[in-house]
């Protein structure tokens, strides 16, 4: 409420001519920025650059493995004659080098079967890594199924999901035959129709829109064509 006292104390400053503010220290006429302000900005900017020079390489160093793809690895697992079309044979080979036994993985290998529209000259290698959370499944001969001990995932003879929590069929490994020897190579995942896609981690769906929700990682190998 404006009363007499306000008028005396000058509540309405606009009615009076503004008194010029005293110049801040180090200010010269015509400068858009005081010296003090310029030094503050410069010091903070330099500090920021120095901080970024340390933090950015460190973060890049820690994140780099995401974008790094290792060398493609092929390992001989036995002569072609060791494998048959109507059951699997378990092979153990190194998937990650340099960490001893922990880097080994297991695959179930068989020859192609006409029953599933495969050529008898090809070799199928099914990974034992459960598509739920990565526990090791085992092939149970009597049932003709792959069964996971952790949470009860069950897969049929081809590795397609029959029941339990897994989200997709079992992964497979690329295979080739060289000099009568079966070689297994990089891992790839498959859709529910067994179409090859880039390797996904367990627990991630494949095919359709899932290919975008779980994008392929640069650290994995492209799936075999055809």
């Amino acid at each position: 409420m404006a009363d007499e006292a306000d008028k005396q104390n000058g509540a309405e400053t606009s009615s009076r001519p503004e008194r010029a503010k005293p110049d801040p220290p180090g200010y010269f006429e015509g400068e858009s920025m005081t010296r003090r302000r310029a030094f503050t900005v410069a010091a903070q900017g330099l500090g920021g650059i120095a901080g970024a020079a340390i933090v950015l390489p460190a973060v890049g160093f820690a994140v780099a493995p995401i974008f790094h793809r290792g060398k493609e690895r092929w390992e001989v697992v036995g002569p072609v004659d060791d494998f048959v079309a109507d059951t699997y044979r378990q092979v153990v080979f190194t998937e990650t080098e340099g960490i001893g036994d922990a880097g080994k993985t297991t695959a179930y290998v068989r020859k192609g079967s006409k029953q599933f529209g495969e050529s008898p000259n090809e070799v199928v290698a099914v990974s034992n890594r459960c598509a739920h959370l990565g526990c090791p499944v085992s092939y149970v001969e009597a049932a003709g199924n792959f069964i996971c001990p952790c949470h009860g995932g069950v897969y049929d003879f081809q590795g397609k999901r029959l029941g339990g929590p897994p989200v997709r069929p079992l992964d497979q490994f690329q295979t080739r035959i060289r000099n009568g020897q079966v070689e297994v190579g990089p891992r790839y995942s498959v859709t529910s129709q067994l179409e090859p896609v880039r390797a996904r981690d367990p627990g991630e769906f494949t095919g359709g829109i899932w290919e975008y929700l779980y994008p392929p990682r640069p650290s994995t190998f492209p799936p075999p064509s055809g």
Partner: protein
Amino acid sequence: MKLDSLIPSPLRKPAKPGEGNGAKGQAPADLKTAPPERPSHTEKLVDKAKEAPVDVLAWVDQRTAASGFLTGMLFRKVPKGTNWFYTLGSATLFAFIVQAVTGVFLAMFYTPSTTQAYASISHINNEVFLGAFVHGMHKWGSSVMVILIFLHMGRTFFFGAYKYPRELNWVIGVVLLILTMTMAFTGYLLPFDQRSFWASVVGININGTGPVIGPYLSDFLRAGPELGATTLSRFYAIHMLLLPGAIIALIGAHMYLVVKLGTTAPPWVRAEKPKLAAPVTKLDAGAEGNGAAPPR
């Protein structure tokens, strides 16, 4: 020796009003008939020795002015109804200190290498003097810390201690909870036995099920598409360098806010009504007869 003599006077617990001892000590009845005895040389030395700790503390206090801060922190007022549930936070802090101390000593013998990690843990457990004890403290202590932090959180929740003005401390506490769980997760891999390995595989794969960024998060944790040699050193670095620093800093902030804001009374303790100078009676004689609440 009395403990009081060791504490410099600014650090001593202040006397309650009316209980303080204002007297300077008994003066002799008559100085002429009973002159003060001169202390012998030995007595002087003993007195000096007795005062040495006080002098040291006073020397530090003069240069840091820590006593004001410490008295404010240690002798702060707590509300009526404060009970044993209020010790859960301190218990969690103690569990963390146990983890930090045992962790430092475990690191003296542990080798974060995929080929030697398991052997170094066996060496600690089977050959190092008291190794199994220190490792056991660290291993079981981690579970104790997780249990205590949840109990502490439950106490805060059920006592309503997260409400204004303590919301920020709740947020810091939640971050501390997440960091503690991350600590437990990264520590699980370090022994590198079958259980560690597969538990970490499963844990990382659960991380990977998050849409869009999940697969990249898994690759980041493993430092590659498969669990490898760098995964172990990565978990080790996170477990003993990155997270402890973050946890210590946040515990500092957490405790600063506790001291700054004070603690809450339990919900069943009601605020006392301000006492009136004289009881007001018969202000409105008709009110009691109408079923109104009797005056307290």
